[in-house]
């Protein structure tokens, strides 16, 4: 019984700390997550933009697959007839942008 009280007290303390941290973050103008704009794309679709493969998320946003353009790997972004957009050597297929 005594242990249960201590456990509950510890959990309450954690909750208070979390709420305080959250309130502090909001009060200090904490930024929101940097989600890309909603574009209404088809979930799971892929494409090339600015020499970068992108994937459409469940909320209709395009996300860059990598942090570099394909050119950094000596390649170009390609949208295969089947399969996902990816980086490939220029001779492997047509470049799309």
């Amino acid at each position, binding site marked *: 019984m*005594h*242990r249960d009280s*201590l*456990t509950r007290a*510890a959990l309450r303390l954690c909750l208070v700390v979390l709420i305080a941290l959250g309130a502090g*973050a909001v009060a200090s103008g*904490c*930024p*929101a*997550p*940097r*989600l890309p704009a909603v574009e209404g794309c088809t*979930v*799971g679709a*892929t494409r090339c933009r600015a020499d*970068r*493969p992108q*994937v459409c*998320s*469940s*909320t209709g*946003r395009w*996300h860059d*697959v*990598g*942090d*570099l*353009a*394909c050119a*950094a*790997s*000596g*390649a170009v972004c390609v949208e*295969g007839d089947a*399969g*996902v*957009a*990816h*980086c*490939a*050597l220029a001779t*492997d297929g047509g470049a799309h942008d």
Partner: protein
Amino acid sequence: MTDLAAVATTLRAELSARYNTDEITPDTWWLSLSRTALGAVAMIPAMTWLRQVLDVLDAEMAARSVCLPKVGGDGAVIVYSAAALADPIELIETCAHEHEHARVLKADPDIQVAMDYTSGELRATVEARACAVGAFARYLVTGAWQTADEIVAPLAHGYLLSPADREHVATLVASHLATMRAGVVPSLEVCHAVLEILRAHHPGAIVVEAFR
């Protein structure tokens, strides 16, 4: 025969220097000491809750490596799990994976990175990139091909990703795999760094012809 333990050691040192990371391992002295002290406190009958917390932490630290921002500074701290340290190939993959997280923290060392990680969708993107870097490093030294589902399987627990987010991770990783299959380095800075380090220090460790 390449000594993969030596490859892992080089990769840890070189990536650590590039991305300003420190390491913590289960045998780091202050961690062992703290764990022993807390374990002793947890033996007090009224501290059952602490024993439960320590059990959870022990299980997590045995199985899962993490990358954390340095407090008040530039760079990151990588906490290697016992599982990662037990096998050189696991260690090479984990080291590469965690340094992708370190790259993000170095490039953007403010609270914004933490806020981004609160979004399931952005967390999925971040973890997909880290998984792809780890998979690329493993592929370079083993030549063994993994599917996207195999690569993202460890994200099923502990990352709070919805089924839709996990599907998103798999598609992102599938794109990197298609790039690798085409004989091209994935469009991730840390993949380039890993390949550069291996070519410079252990060229014989690269078993995939296209990347030698």
